[in-house]
């Protein structure tokens, strides 16, 4: 059975269920749990649910130390860019300590943050910075695109014995979708085929999955059958699912909200080049333009990928001749 849930509520449900299940899970961040009326505080008490000062280095670093010594902290960071003032802890502490100890310790923690808020937040609050974290061995990065994945990946992230950066697209916060009842876990590192198709493979990340699915619907009306794959985790990346689809369709469009240079799309393109080079006749990357996110709406729309750009890219790869069998 399943019920319809709002994306944000699905995340919250996973956190509540895991906190009920495991007394070692703690949850803290800025501007949360401020009064005794707070439902999480009421449920779990002030030891396990806390408001933190605006101190990302200490918030994340304390999470690292708490994880090293037996807790499973979830740090609410609100916006992914807020991690940048504490990037040593994210990149050079949390994922390194286990390795440097020769496997003696582990750092089970979740860094929860929204990203890509394309609603007029301008240059410092709207970006996609996951490419800076997906090449860090020891660190996992998940980007759920549906309420079901939001719940299942949060549950998996909390239970994972490694540091997990949990990035939710702000633009999907109020989206609704079916979420399976009860315990629901989405394994980290498993891509999902969101729509099956035979003519072209579209790999899309986060908010872009929604846009790719809408594009695929329009393309279907033009007799183009698009398969839409959501990696769901950028680290570890499920290369096999992507490559299998690409070998079937022979055409690829990669959609990433981040700027093209050094994007997740570029990394996926590299994997396709190595593992499916003989099967692919055309590949296009639909990414943000190589600019910061501007404030004014027409400027912002111009920089960020959209449904039209995806449809156009698919039509252009379809115009390429197929690789001879």
């Amino acid at each position: 059975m399943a019920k319809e849930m709002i994306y944000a509520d699905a995340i919250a449900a996973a956190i509540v269920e895991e906190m009920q299940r495991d007394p070692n899970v703690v949850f803290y961040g800025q501007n949360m749990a401020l009064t005794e009326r707070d439902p999480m505080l009421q449920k779990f008490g002030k030891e396990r649910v806390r408001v933190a000062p605006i101190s990302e280095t200490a918030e994340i670093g304390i999470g690292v130390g708490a994880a090293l010594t037996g807790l499973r902290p979830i740090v609410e960071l609100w916006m992914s860019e807020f991690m940048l003032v504490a990037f040593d802890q994210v990149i050079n502490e949390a994922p390194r300590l286990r390795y440097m100890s020769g496997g003696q310790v582990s750092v089970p923690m979740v860094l929860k943050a929204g990203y890509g808020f394309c609603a007029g937040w301008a240059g410092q609050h709207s970006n996609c910075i996951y490419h800076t974290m997906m090449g860090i061995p020891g660190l996992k990065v998940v980007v759920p695109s549906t309420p079901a994945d939001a719940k299942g990946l949060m549950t998996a992230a909390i239970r994972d014995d490694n540091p997990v950066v949990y990035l939710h697209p702000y633009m999907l916060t109020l989206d609704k979708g079916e979420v399976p009842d009860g315990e629901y876990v989405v394994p980290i590192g498993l891509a999902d085929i969101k729509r099956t198709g035979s003519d072209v493979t579209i790999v899309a990340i986060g908010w872009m999955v929604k846009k790719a699915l809408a594009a695929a619907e329009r393309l279907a009306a033009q007799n183009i059958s698009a398969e839409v794959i959501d990696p769901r985790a950028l680290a570890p990346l499920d290369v096999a699912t992507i490559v299998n689809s690409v070998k079937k369709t022979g055409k690829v469009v990669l959609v990433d909200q981040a700027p093209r240079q050094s994007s997740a799309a570029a990394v996926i393109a590299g994997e396709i080049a190595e593992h499916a080079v003989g099967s692919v006749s055309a590949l296009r990357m639909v990414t943000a333009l190589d600019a910061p996110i501007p404030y004014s709406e027409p400027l912002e729309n111009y920089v960020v990928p959209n449904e039209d750009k995806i449809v156009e890219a698919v039509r252009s790869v379809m115009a390429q001749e197929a690789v001879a069998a």
Partner: protein
Amino acid sequence: MPHKIAQRSAPRKQQVRRDQLAWMYTQMVRIREFEESVKRTFIEHPGVIRGHSHLGDGAEASIVGALSTRHPTDFVMPSYRCHGYPIVLGTPLCNMMAEVFGRKDGLCHGFGGSMHLADPARYFPGTSGMVGQSIAHATGAALTAQVKNSGQIVYCFFGDGASKQGAFFESLNMAAVWKLPIVYVLENNQYQAYTHFRLEDANAAAGDRLSKKADAFSMPGATVDGTDPVAVRTVIAKAAKRARAGQGPSLVETKFYRLSAHGNLITVPPLPTQFPEHEAVAVYGNRKEFEQWKAKDPVKGFRARLLKDGALSEAAARRIESAAHAEVEEAVEFALASPLPAPEEALEYVYA
């Protein structure tokens, strides 16, 4: 001064039992022997130690005095200058030395080296090589103790340089707000790498003690002679008692002098490396300062005092010293005999 936990006046040394004094001297000697052995390795076995090693000679009284107040399950979270602490916790020196030598039998199987020792079974969960960042980790361990209501406290050690990092300020603020059970031990060894602390610390530049920083967080702050293990013990005991009672963190500055240079010379292989002269001499040309502090060597000073007070006989002191020497010699032999790790082991431990 409502938040003072101790004055700088001489503590009453008769509070410490004879066997405890002998234990303290033993640990101090073991640390010194280990560090001198690491230093000699650069000359006696060139190339065996890679990268950067940082020694705790000069810090023995601070380390041992502080840890003499520790209960068996309290966490110990030092910086990358980390050899001394596990020695006191009982970590086998042979596995420590093997780690410094990058061997398979190292504490961390050769994955960490000198800067990243870890012995979580003895409540030492590891270190960070990034100055000051481990202050946040230690604060997190205190959060664990508080949430689990385990009765544990955390001993967090870091240097004067680290107290200029944002992690220091952010962590102490949060620990004070959350009343976390932690003792912050600011080991002022007077040099941040090559920079004298008066050149970079606002309190020092103004002629104040570094523990004045505690005032900013409304927590107790004290400065103590870090060459005197009994004085350190007395001050840290009050801070530890406060942490155990749920009254929150304290900041204690233990002031002493690093007796070796910051670390071995940074050279590009295959050029050999070894410990250079202390910065006081090599950088500032101030041999007088170095000699004055060398005369205040905490190990020699404590030995003389124990003998003078009749707490330890000359024969007993020599037994302690020769046992420590033999223990470290054995550790070196063990480490040299231990195999290097197999290359393909490099992919283990990336993920849990």
